[in-house]
């Protein structure tokens, strides 16, 4: 059996996925990226060897912002292309809009016939990204997942600042005012969702089913809030955060 390995080194988490020649995911692994992409790549390599997939024996394609820090990769492909390919495989679709809320980037990718038509990434700032949510969760002494769950219970509060630093001050002043934690959590998720929706609006080609990938896709409330704000069905899947790694591995199968 032929296998291919995809490595996706994101700003927060590093993911690895192994596909067999039938394009089935046979192994997946996630770990924090930490401060060094090179060390992370090495630690993933060891873990892959232990699992029986020595990168020396199988084609490896790297993606994510740390894609150039994977010395054993045969090829580096951007996360845009990999997320699109991976999402097509994971969702079983050829025409779709991928929304990937990552640690430092939020990407919206319009895919038609399995090919990227157009894409948008957030500007330099972290508004609308996982990092934004993580910083706010820290301020509220919550884990990001807990914040999303709590947000479902809140409402009627908003954060106007898009900048993470200013938004954090705004959250602190809400805390000072005695605002309920669930209401602040609601405002944080709402801010991320609004930013993503305004970005999606700029992408005219963004038609087809909306599929959510990236670290936040496991938070069901985020998916629901996006669905409501976009007025379209948003689907996700268990392997959603591995979309980039799966896409990279798919490219590896062709090497």
């Amino acid at each position, binding site marked *: 059996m032929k296998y291919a390995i995809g490595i996706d080194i994101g700003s927060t988490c590093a993911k690895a996925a192994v596909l067999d020649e039938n394009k089935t995911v046979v192994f997946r692994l996630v770990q924090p990226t930490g401060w060094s992409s090179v060390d992370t790549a090495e630690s993933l390599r060891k873990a892959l060897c232990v699992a029986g997939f020595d990168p020396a024996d199988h084609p490896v394609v790297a993606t994510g912002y740390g894609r150039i820090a994977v010395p054993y990769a045969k090829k580096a492909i951007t996360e845009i292309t990999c997320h699109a390919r991976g999402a097509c495989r994971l969702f079983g679709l050829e025409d779709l809009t991928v929304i990937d809320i990552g640690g430092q980037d939020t990407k919206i990718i319009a895919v038609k016939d399995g090919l*990227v038509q*157009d894409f948008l990434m957030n500007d*330099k700032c972290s508004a609308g990204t996982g990092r934004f949510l993580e910083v706010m969760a820290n301020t509220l002494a919550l884990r990001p997942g807990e914040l999303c769950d709590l947000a479902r219970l809140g409402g009627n509060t908003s954060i106007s600042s898009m900048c993470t630093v200013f938004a954090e001050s705004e959250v602190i002043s809400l805390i000072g005012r005695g605002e309920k934690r669930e209401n602040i959590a609601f405002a944080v998720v709402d801010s991320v969702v609004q930013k993503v929706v305004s970005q999606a609006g700029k992408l005219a080609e963004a038609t087809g089913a909306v599929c959510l990938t990236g670290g936040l896709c496991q938070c069901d409330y985020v998916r629901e809030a996006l669905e409501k704000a976009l007025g379209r069905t948003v689907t996700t899947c268990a392997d959603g955060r591995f979309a980039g790694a799966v896409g990279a591995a798919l490219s590896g199968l062709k090497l």
Partner: protein
Amino acid sequence: MADFLLPAAFEEYSDARKAGFLKVKAAKEQGRKVAGCFCSFTPLEILDAAGLLTVSLCGMSPETIPAAETELPRNLCPLIKSSYGFYLTDKCPYTYFADVIVGETTCDGKKKMYELLGRGKNTYVLHLPQGRDVPYAREMWTEELRRFVRYLEETFSVQITDEKLREAIKQRNALRAARCRLMELLREDDLPISGTELYTFLDGIGFNFDIDDAIAKTLALADDLSAQKSQKVTPGGKRVLVTGCPIGGVFQKVVGAVERAGGNVVCFENCSGIKPSRCMVDEQAADPIQAIADAYLDIGCAVMTPDSKRFETLPALMKEFRADGVLDVALQACHTYLIEGRSIRDICKEQGVPYMALETDYATADAGQIDTRIAAFMETLGE
């Protein structure tokens, strides 16, 4: 011989910068007057005919932006901030030694910056019409140029004759034609020169005070390249047309990323590229000022509303240079180009050519993201 003092910090400057200062100082000591220009709309022929040396003023480096931000808002185009910063810090030899700085009423940021610049430097602002389609635009611009002629004649005690103007028109046309010939070599399948090399050459030649020498060097390079096609450039690389703002300050970030991703920039539809070089002045015209006005008004810049010239030229250039993709590069907070991007996107869509817009500044903070975006764009163009 007049004594021209160097800036106080001269000894701390790099060798290249020192050389620039000494070159201008030497010219001034020989009695030459220097005009500093910012924009492609500056009617160079008139300055040539007045006997002034013309040079583009520095505004492509992040180095002077912190100084500029002591007086200018942060959320402003980096080109304007950098230019003004060079004036504040005395780091640009051409700004420092300029006898007159010529600006135009192009974008709002530049207009207001010129007002501040005018407090410390002799600054002359030409009033550019806001569009070329209204019937009086041509008349107004011609009158502006006549006013400029009178100003130069009085200020520098010179006579700008029709004969001198015709001579200057001929020479500038020859330079434009030489630049075009060089740029047109990138229409070929096998590129004899990379986009980076082309741009670097054109940028450098702009600082040559001797226009005939600049023409000769440009033609010599073009001859050389057409005679021996080099194999240096990626064969089969995707062909990208770059449009938008001047890109000197973001060149590595943008053009470097295209080339790192295995592509080639084959056409620069901007001020350092083909845009002003194709605006030839009629050498036979009875009224040379009118002819100069007509040619310069034909520059397709986003300060014009509507920017009909750019809308006409872009699809033609996409075909001429067989562009596989268009990169629209706008500098941070450049409202005119950023908003016009929407129309450019539609034009590209009509032409069936993939389009991507980028907004960036001179800082390196977003270099990684720009690299990824451009690499992803190149991937969408296919293998």
